[in-house]
């Protein structure tokens, strides 16, 4: 909302600079987006012409400038502006001149006395531009002219950000009322000229009482459209509007002044003598003032006559009834329309106006008459004409609720100790009715403050007008209690830290992806959460997987010259289960290039392979019970068909890891043929995790193990997991730990065979094993491997 300080001063006497006023707005909670100073806030500056320039004897950038002041007088001053030139007409401030709050005195500049100053526009307070140098005036301006006459009176234009709960501040009167409470000054309410009124206005028939609670109107007959008076044109221009003609301008002017939107119809476009306020018919067509055609439904509120609609109520008039240059009789509407109705319609059809923005926030139902009278006064002054009587249809006069409260309650909400007298003072200035005679006070807000409905609202008013700094930092209070973090949150933190420790960088990505990506990753659009009003194509769905984003992170980094990458993301993924959205915490990671991105002069070592990836997963998930990895039963399309393992938690698949399919890489723009990836859901791990449980320790063995190597030949297609399982499941009187230390396939072996070598560590918790015990255990294992996997000792 733009507010002109001079306009404000029509309603309240304020003696504040624009800066001080802006500070007051901020204290009241009204954000000031900008302050634009206008006009001349100076005295004693006249037009002079430069006749001669010479260098200052003691400076290489200052000049001594001679000026012709007109009337045969001249003056020499010191000037440092780079743009000074002979022949220029410039504003010269004389000794004693006032520039804003500064009074000019003679100044000695590097040894030369300067009795006067050539001014820049900045020094005159004319603009905020950073144009360097003195202000150069038009050549035609006579010498000696008071520069003040070239720029109007000093003024300031504030751009205020009005929050949606304060529609009453969307006018000059409203802002003045607010300041009046703060500054404890009276509001000078407008007192428009009263007209007796000749003849009746049109009949008003409100057939949609829910949509329109008050309709005030009158006719003015015999007007002659004219240009608006200067003050209206100037003020509307300042508000950013192009003045058109008085019949149009006055409605806007009154709206900015009093906050009440008005609409003027051409009387002769209204059939009959009745104006109807009604709901639209379903499918009803209506052409707006701006030419757009709407097809309406029964929730839109219309103004019209018995035959047709003439306006979309409170939002915009129709093309058929607008004011024209030759309009002679006007019908002026000053109404109160229901806020949600206007909001709904404005949003639904995408039509918004200064009028609708006021109605949808809530106009002042008590303002319709005054606004109509003010408009009448201005219309008649500019265009003549004869006003009719006023018609005011207001079946149920509105009153705000009475709020009962005690001063202790107000201070309780705020945690303050504002004195009762101070509270009384503030509330009496705000209220329509205020009674503080008993222990319980009662307050009723005027109609323009519908936001003051309960004591919490009044507490805010008390704090605002007493100053928010009156709120102290309270005394400390007891601790509420202890609750553990949600398990998923803790797991995300722990697993994320592990991954970071293992060389993975955390990424954060926008949660959206497109249909193409869903398809490329084999996800059905039917099971993904779609965004109805996506902001861009390719951002239509919430991610069911984090891998596409991470692969794009790789592609992006490659384009920036980063090739050795290990990334992870830990956040929610989304899917639809039986049509309902489901959110799960998911952790995904990708790795490509060298393990370490910084080159090392001794070489970076081997490039990571599948077993590196498996090691990462083991390091991250190994501490959880019930986690195992098995070759994928079904490999998703985006994974390498032969290099993919499932992550099993408590017997169920919780995720996967392996190599990304090269076509998927291509699709994501990754310039690398080998990218290792993993993705798993966090939820299944929660069962095997508790922040409150510590894992019990097993004692470290006291007795040294007996070591044996076991080398066997088996068929090539026997997987390692089978052999390991046999070793693990063989019942032995001693315990055995085993590691694979060699795997060989080649010409030196019989065809179709491979050699597998374990190192076995046999031990017992209570003794060193005898050779015979070790030997027996070794032979038992060998026998099991032989009978169950066809293994032969090598």
């Amino acid at each position, binding site marked *: 909302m733009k507010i002109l300080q001079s306009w404000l001063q029509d309603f309240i006497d304020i003696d504040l600079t624009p800066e001080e006023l802006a500070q007051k707005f901020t*204290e009241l*909670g009204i954000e000031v987006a900008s302050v634009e100073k206008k006009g001349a806030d100076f005295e004693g500056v006249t037009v002079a012409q430069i006749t001669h320039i010479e260098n200052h004897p003691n400076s290489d950038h200052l000049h001594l400038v001679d000026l012709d002041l007109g009337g045969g007088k001249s003056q020499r001053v010191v000037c440092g502006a780079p743009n000074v030139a002979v022949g220029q007409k410039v504003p010269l401030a004389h000794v004693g001149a006032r520039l804003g709050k500064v009074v000019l005195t003679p100044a000695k500049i590097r040894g030369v006395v300067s009795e006067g100053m050539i001014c820049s526009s900045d020094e005159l307070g004319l603009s905020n531009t950073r144009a360097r140098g003195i202000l150069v005036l038009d050549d035609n301006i006579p010498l000696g002219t008071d520069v003040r006459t070239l720029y109007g009176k000093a003024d300031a234009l504030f751009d205020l950000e009005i929050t*949606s*709960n304060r529609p009453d501040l969307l006018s000059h009167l409203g802002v003045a009322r607010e300041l009046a409470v703060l500054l404890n000054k009276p509001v000078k309410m407008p007192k428009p000229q009263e007209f007796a009124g000749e003849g009746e206005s049109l009949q008003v028939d409100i057939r949609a009482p829910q949509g329109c609670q008050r309709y005030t109107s009158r006719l003015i007959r015999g007007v002659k459209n004219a240009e608006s008076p200067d003050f209206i044109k100037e003020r509307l221009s300042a508000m950013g509007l192009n003045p058109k003609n008085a019949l149009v301008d006055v409605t806007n002017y009154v709206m900015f002044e009093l906050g009440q939107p008005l609409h003027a119809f051409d009387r002769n476009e209204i059939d009959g003598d009745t104006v109807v306020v009604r709901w639209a018919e379903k499918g009803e067509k209506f052409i707006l003032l701006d030419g757009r055609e709407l097809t309406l439904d029964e929730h839109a509120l219309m103004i019209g006559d018995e035959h047709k609609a003439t306006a979309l109520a409170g939002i915009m008039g129709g093309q058929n009834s607008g004011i024209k240059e030759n309009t002679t009789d006007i019908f002026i509407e000053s109404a109160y329309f229901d806020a*949600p*109705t206007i*909001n709904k319609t404005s*949003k639904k059809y995408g039509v918004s106006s200064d009028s609708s923005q006021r109605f*949808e926030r809530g106009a002042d139902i008590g303002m319709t008459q005054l606004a109509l009278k003010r408009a009448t006064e201005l219309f008649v002054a500019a265009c003549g004409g004869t006003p009719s009587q006023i018609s005011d249809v207001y079946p149920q006069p509105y009153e705000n609720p009475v709020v009962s409260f005690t001063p202790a309650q107000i201070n*309780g*909400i*705020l*945690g*303050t100790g504002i004195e009762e007298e101070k509270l009384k003072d503030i509330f009496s200035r705000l209220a329509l009715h205020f009674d503080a005679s008993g222990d319980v006070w009662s307050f009723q807000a005027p109609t323009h403050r519908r936001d003051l409905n*309960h004591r*919490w609202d009044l507490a*805010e008013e008390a*704090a605002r007008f007493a100053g*928010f*700094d009156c*709120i*102290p*930092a*309270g*005394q400390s*209070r007891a601790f*509420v*209690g*202890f609750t553990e*973090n949600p398990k998923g*949150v803790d797991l995300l*933190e722990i697993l994320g*830290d592990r*991954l*970071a420790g293992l*060389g993975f*960088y*955390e990424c*954060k*990505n*926008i*949660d*959206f992806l497109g249909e193409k990506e869903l398809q490329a990753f084999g996800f059905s659009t039917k099971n993904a*959460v*779609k*965004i109805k*009003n996506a*902001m861009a194509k390719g951002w239509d769905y*919430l991610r069911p997987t984090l891998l596409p984003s991470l692969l794009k992170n790789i592609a*992006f*980094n490659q384009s920036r010259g*980063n090739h050795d990458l290990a990334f992870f993301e830990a956040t*929610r993924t989304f899917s*639809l289960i039986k049509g*309902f*959205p489901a*959110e799960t915490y998911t952790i995904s990671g990708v790795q490509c290039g060298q393990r370490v*991105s910084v080159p*090392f*002069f001794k070489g970076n070592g081997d490039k990571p392979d599948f077993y590196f990836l498996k090691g990462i997963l083991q390091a991250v998930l190994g501490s959880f019970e019930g986690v195992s990895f098995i070759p994928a039963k079904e490999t998703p399309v985006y994974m390498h068909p032969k290099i993919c393992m499932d992550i099993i938690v408590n017997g169920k698949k919780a995720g996967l890891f392996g190599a990304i399919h090269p076509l998927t890489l291509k699709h994501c723009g990754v310039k690398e043929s080998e990218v290792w990836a993993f993705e798993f859901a966090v939820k299944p791990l929660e069962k095997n995790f508790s922040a409150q449980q510590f894992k019990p320790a097993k004692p470290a063995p006291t007795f040294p193990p007996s070591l044996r190597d076991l080398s066997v030949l088996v068929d090539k297609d026997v997987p390692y997991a089978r052999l390991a399982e046999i070793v693990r499941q063989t019942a032995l009187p001693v315990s055995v730990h085993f590691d694979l230390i060699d795997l060989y396939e080649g010409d030196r072996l019989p065809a179709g065979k491979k050699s597998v070598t374990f190192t076995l560590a046999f031990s017992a918790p209570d003794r060193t094993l005898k050779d015979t015990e070790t030997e027996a255990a070794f032979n038992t294992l060998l026998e099991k491997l032989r009978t169950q996997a066809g293994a032969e000792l090598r």
Partner: protein
Amino acid sequence: MNLQQFKELCAQIEREYTDKIASAADLNAVEELRVASLGRKGALTELLKNLKDFSIEEKKEAGPLGNALKAALTQALEEKTAALSAQALNEELNRVDLDLTLPARPAAMGKRHPLSIAQKRMTDILSKLGFTWAEGPWVEDEKHNFDMLNIPKHHPARDAQDTFFAETGSPLSLVLRTHTSNVQSRFMEKHKPPIRIMAPGRVFRNDSLDATHSPVFHQIEGLYVDKNVSMADLKRDLTAFMKGLLGDKTEIRFRPSFFPFTEPSAEVDVKCVFCEGKGCPICKGTGWIEMLGSGVVNPHVLKNCGIDPEIYSGYAFGMGVERLAMMMMDINDIRTFYENDLRILNQF
């Protein structure tokens, strides 16, 4: 040989070999001295052979004398051997020529995302202030995201949020939550006061992606509901929170504002940490930086959640994680967080 001669020879051997061992140049010389003194034909061995010719009385005197000498020489030889070995080892070590200033072998080290770091710091502080972590859905129904929070349908406050709507099979109209405040309505609906929770997480706004806007960003919400909770409690806790976040000298101020779910509402500024309130480009010369929105929980919100506002009251606040991270990490484009350029990620 008589006892006297034996004693003299002992003394002579002791003198001779003690000196020689002490001045031996290397391990070979020590070995030669060992052979020459204690070897099969060594000087002391030879001398001790004479013991057999002595009387018992003489043996009692000569025997221990000889043994003591043998022990002394043995010890001297061992000590010399150890000393020379250590010396030899040190000489070898000193021949090592390694340029220690060469670059390190880089360890594979990853990092948490700057937003995670910022959020963790904030949740750590709030946790110390007694706030427990609460979660809520990111795809939320309009009831919990708007209606219960006193943001009615067909009100401009609702329009201001630039909401994403989700298309699902649910009979409810679902949105991507526009703020973390949905956790307020979710939590209060299920729990009785006292309540003291924080709710960090992602939120969504249908806003263009530019230097200062992102359709996805992070907030952290605080909520405290108990008997007699006031604006002063809010000021105390936010002062502690901001001191934790920005340092002990931090000052805050309240400015009136409007949020549908709080009444009274306050915008919270902190005294600019870069210029200590003197005015600088970061605080746009005002000396204060806008940090978060807050206020006393609107009684309608309590009522909507089944909490009696005549008995209980509360405060709530909400803060942007990106905003803080950008300020403290000197990042001036919000997109930086979502590009995930390794050269940025590896700095934190």
